[in-house]
């Protein structure tokens, strides 16, 4: 149990982070997850006084939430080696698959905010860093009732089909966008979020490719929420619909106001890859948790008078579980490491210490948008540039994030099924967490995209 750290890159700083995250995970997150999982009605999970809020608050107190925010905004991004976020995700997944996703997603709008041309929006990042009361909770709202897989396939050529146009549309009127439509019940943190990374349809004729991205405060008039989703696994993770009726959203909140960005190009796939590589890390950690439970159980329980861990079929099963878990984790590490070490070299680390960097970035982006809208040549150049065939290494990377998610989640599920069998009849009892871990892992095969759909969407580059 436990494992030999094959990763030679993990030094003192990362070890401390790992230890910190593990302690928080096992002392706070794991027991909370077990408790929340037992609640019959998912509304109880998010009720006042629910242990969920303790998890959120204590997470902020550890400061681990700052990892995705640059130094310029009070975060710790850039001060830590590139593997930091991956190791954090592993430990949170180890503690509780559902809560790991909830905590991860809760930072998304604020991590995106730093790219905004608007100082007000950029400042969300700092507010988030300082919000130890967990009053700011983010979500990532993409999936829609009639468009689940469609959004995934949206990154491929197929996404240009107008029949796939988003249900949630944003129509520009003066300085505002008018939002109508809804996001599906699978939006994580959907009914508790205060801010959303929100994908909206700008040009319906372009299908999914015609969508842009808003950073949307969720307290605007016209926004309502569905009931929390009642589901098989990851029950501590709040999910639910967000409904928009004639919502007026000021244009300053539209982070990507041009359509065609999230399309059959490397941007969409890189986006998908980033989200999925986090899933890869989280569920390689979750897989490890099932393995460790099975090992502990096998070493402490007998079958027909013989220790389980001494029986040949159990030994074989355990070693094969071990093999899968190690391969999944090390693959996920390698994939994340490549991305982060390319994006967070010493220069960007230094640059991210200064707010001016982000001011300049925002300005540059805004100018680009203006040019893009006005000049065909800029638009065509952009499309060529973002074509996978001409893209750089980094841009080709997206499919690896997807491969990592597929590998880790399928490992987590298969390992949980095997562990379930090692527990035997005791697997049914709520005394042991393996039944829950199995349900949590099962959900991951669909979370962030049905695995087969992710594979189809990422196919082009191979």
């Amino acid at each position, binding site marked *: 149990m436990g494992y030999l750290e094959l990763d030679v890159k993990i030094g003192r700083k990362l070890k401390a982070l790992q230890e910190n995250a593990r302690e928080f995970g096992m002392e706070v997150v794991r027991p909370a997850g077990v408790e929340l999982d037992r609640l019959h009605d998912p509304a109880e999970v998010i009720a006042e006084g629910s242990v969920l809020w303790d998890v959120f608050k204590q997470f902020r107190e550890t400061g681990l939430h700052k990892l995705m925010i640059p130094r310029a905004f009070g975060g710790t991004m850039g001060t830590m080696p590139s593997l930091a976020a991956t190791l954090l995700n592993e430990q949170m997944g180890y503690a509780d698959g559902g809560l790991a996703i909830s905590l991860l997603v809760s930072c998304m709008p604020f991590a995106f905010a730093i790219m905004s041309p608007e100082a007000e929006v950029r400042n969300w990042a700092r507010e988030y860093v300082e919000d130890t009361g967990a009053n700011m909770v983010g979500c990532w709202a993409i999936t829609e009732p009639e468009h689940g897989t469609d959004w995934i396939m949206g990154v491929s050529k197929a996404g240009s089909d107008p029949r796939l146009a988003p249900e949630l549309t944003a129509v520009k009127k003066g300085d505002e966008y008018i939002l109508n439509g809804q996001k599906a019940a699978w939006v994580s943190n959907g009914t508790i979020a205060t801010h959303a990374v929100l994908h909206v349809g700008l040009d319906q004729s372009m299908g999914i490719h015609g969508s842009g991205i808003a950073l949307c405060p969720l307290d605007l008039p016209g926004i309502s929420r569905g009931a929390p989703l*009642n589901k098989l696994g990851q029950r501590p993770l709040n999910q639910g619909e967000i409904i928009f009726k004639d919502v007026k959203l000021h244009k300053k909140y539209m982070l990507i106001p041009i359509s065609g960005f999230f399309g059959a190009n490397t941007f969409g796939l890189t986006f998908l890859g980033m989200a999925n590589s986090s899933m890869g890390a989280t569920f390689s950690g979750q897989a490890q948790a099932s393995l460790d439970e099975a090992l502990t159980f096998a070493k402490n329980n007998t079958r027909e008078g013989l220790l389980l861990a001494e029986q040949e079929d159990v030994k074989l099963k355990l070693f094969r579980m071990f093999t899968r878990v190690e391969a999944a984790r090390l693959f996920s590490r390698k994939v994340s490491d490549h991305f982060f070490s390319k994006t967070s070299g010493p220069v960007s680390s230094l640059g991210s210490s200064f707010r001016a960097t982000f001011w300049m970035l925002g300005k540059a982006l805004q100018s680009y948008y203006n040019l893009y809208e006005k000049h065909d040549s800029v638009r065509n150049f952009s499309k060529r540039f973002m074509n996978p065939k001409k893209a750089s290494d980094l841009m080709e990377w997206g499919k690896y994030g997807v491969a990592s998610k597929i590998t880790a989640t399928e490992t987590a599920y298969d390992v949980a099924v095997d562990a379930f069998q090692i527990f035997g009849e005791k697997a*049914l009892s709520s005394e042991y967490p393996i039944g829950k871990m199995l349900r949590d892992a099962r959900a991951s095969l*669909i979370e962030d995209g049905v695995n087969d759909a992710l594979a*189809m969407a990422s196919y082009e580059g191979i």
Partner: protein
Amino acid sequence: MTYLDIDIHKNKESKAMLKEVDKFTREVMRPAGIELDKLSDPADVIEENSLLWEVLKAFRALDLHQIDIPKDLGGMSDLDWMTSLLIKERMGHADAGLAIGMMASNLPFQCAATSKSPVLQQIVRDYCEDRECRMIGCWAPMEVVQKSGGSTTGNNSSRKSPVKAVPNKNRLILNGELIKISNATIATHALISFEFEVSGQTEGSGVAMVPLDLPGVSRGTPLNKIGQRTLNQATIIFQNVEIPVEYMLAKDDSVVNEMSRLLNVGTNLNLGIVFAGLSLAAFDEALNYSKMRIQGGGPIFSHRNIKLQLFKMFAMVESVRANARRLANYASENPNSPSEAHGAAAKYLATETAINISSEAIQIFGGNGLAKEYPLEKIFRDAQTSLVEYGVNDVMAIKSANHL
């Protein structure tokens, strides 16, 4: 669905009956199963006003509790094997937990019907006539004595039953505890095996029917399980429970062994049928959904990868159904020489397939596959539970390999 039903089933009379059964499973069992599954406290499942009782009564209204009991005792034993199998398969298709509960209720009375004891025969007659569910059976699996496989000693290991019986004149005094018994909390009669205890020594074993209203019988609280939540399970405790010897069905090791062997193969076959039914249910749901759900501008069924996935599911489900049919046919022709290996294989393959197919079906449903509003997540939990039901699959497989 347009795929053909390729069962050979010629009995016209039973076809009419199957139509009734089909209606019962679709209109009563399945919806009740969905409601009962939602109850957070398993004690609510067996409550007085629970839907459970409607299901049980509807089952008996169709005389399905009389299956495999001779006519002269009020039963319906002339059912052909295919009809009997189709009934169980439909029940598994509707709700595996309820199906297992109802079959478990019948079993003690089916066994008692083989006895010559007038007392037991009367109990069987009463059961056949009871459509109000005043009588409910339960039973405890009995270990078949295994020759220790592959070893050179060749010794029989001695039987182990958690219940001991001390003979006292014309009565037996029972002590012991049986865990995870289906129907335990609601049952009125239990079929159990025990070891005789004479002056502190155990010698030989027996099988008896025990009325559960006797002094000294108590039950544990209903188990809270991940799946098959519609199936009541609990512990039964015997504390100096006295039964007359007339309640014994067997009192000889070899007879007990024979009975255990038959019960074991029969139960495995029944589970094989029920989970073939559950697998078919998962497949049917996935196929229907794939033809209705629009993504990429058309039904997802139109995609070649989805067709491939569904066809593979179809091939496997049909194979598991065929497997149960072959064994059921054999068992009906050879009631006294059961194939233990094939029984175990039927349970093993059907439950593994149930898990795989319900998991694949969830993938076809996407996010909806996980949501409680849709049927699949329950089917998946029911299937998952079967992996460790009536013996953990791997353990059973390893034991059963000794018959190869």
